[in-house]
């Protein structure tokens, strides 16, 4: 294992000389993403908050995508998934992804329905 690390990230765009170097490189990248998230969260640019994509503010999509990017690098480089066999990697990654997409889809659609019942229904709940 010691020498079996794959040392390139961004599909080979950045190559590191040693595993230690790669770790610090990934840290720098993750810190950068967190900083971008915090800055966006504080200034909340109007162009991102006023645009809606699929019923959600664009800024929230940006946050979610940046989170998934962070999760990818934590799992791939810190948890060494990059060095595992692709069969193991797929079993670990796609099982939760499939179940989570399924669950969130059902729950959010249901919640939206309940929201409409509260809003347009005959029963007043804010009295």
């Amino acid at each position: 294992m010691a020498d079996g690390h794959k040392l390139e990230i961004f599909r080979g765009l950045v190559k590191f000389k040693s595993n230690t170097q790669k770790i610090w490189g990934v840290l720098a990248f993750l810190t950068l993403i967190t900083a971008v998230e915090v800055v966006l969260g504080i200034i909340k640019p109007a162009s991102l908050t006023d645009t809606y994509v699929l019923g959600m503010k664009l800024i929230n999509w940006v946050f979610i995508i940046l989170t998934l990017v962070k999760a990818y690098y934590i799992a791939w480089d810190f948890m060494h998934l990059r060095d595992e066999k692709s069969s193991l990697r797929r079993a670990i990654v796609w099982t939760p992804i499939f179940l989570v997409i399924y669950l969130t889809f059902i729950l959010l659609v249901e919640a939206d329905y309940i929201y409409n019942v509260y809003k347009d229904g005959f029963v007043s709940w804010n009295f």
Partner: protein
Amino acid sequence: MNSTVTTGTETSVWGGGNQPLGASYGKLMMWFFLVSDALTFSGFLAAYGFSRFKFIETWPIADEVFTHVPFFHGNYPMIYVALMTFVLIMSSVTMVLAVDAGHKMKQNAVIWYMFATVIGGIIFVGSQAWEWGTFIKGDHGALETKGGRILQFVKADTGERASLADFAASIPDDRIIHERKNGLWFFQEPTLTSVSLAEVVEGFKADSNILIRTEQINEEGEKTLLDRKASLAKLAEATQVVEGANLIHNEYGSRLFADFFFFITGFHGFHVFSGVVINIIIFFNVVIGTYERRGHYEMVEKVGLYWHFVDLVWVFVFTFFYLV
């Protein structure tokens, strides 16, 4: 078939000694656990999303809830949580460096990296405890209406939040907290709020600079501010003073927000705490040379997987609780 030890097991797939998927038994089992744990957390976060979409127009705005930084006064939304996130990522880095040093059989390096990881974990758990304390203690105070909705107060001239103590009138109080030692019956009641409802109502009527803010989020994505007349009308619906947050009352808005905050960050904090304990055990094992004698540091790698997972979960909690 026979109980004697057979040789040449490598010729048979079923003979044992295989590593399916190229991962050792321990690592594979750790991954099993992590995947199931990931699904548990996903369930929590999906439930959070469910409740939030249910009350999408009245959900609290996280920027207005988590605004404090220890040792600093003022309004600093998100700064401290971002710092906590960085601490956790940093301790993840020292953990992966420990794993790397373990592969190279550098005992001393592993010791120091494990030590740094434990310290990072302790700082994070401590920060979370502080965050809980601040959240429970509350900020400005609010009123709760008959329907369980929250009314907050804003200064009309500056637009800043007004604390109850800023404007509440002082009525010589007829109510004191009932303790076990007072009176015939050994009842006691929870701590009274620092100001009573009557004091808040009187103070509000006297100070024309105070307006009421409801939970409703308007088109600009901000909480709706009522004008003076509507505020006075709304005030009649108030039934009690709320200071701070617990599982039943929450001055920041929807009580479900507080429930999920306690549940999700609490469950995550429990994971971090267990991780710290496990890391300490491994740290001492490294110190006394257990893995040096065993000839490999795979145990550090397995615990590392758990530690990174805790970091991974926090990344999602950070996004869905504080950012989105």
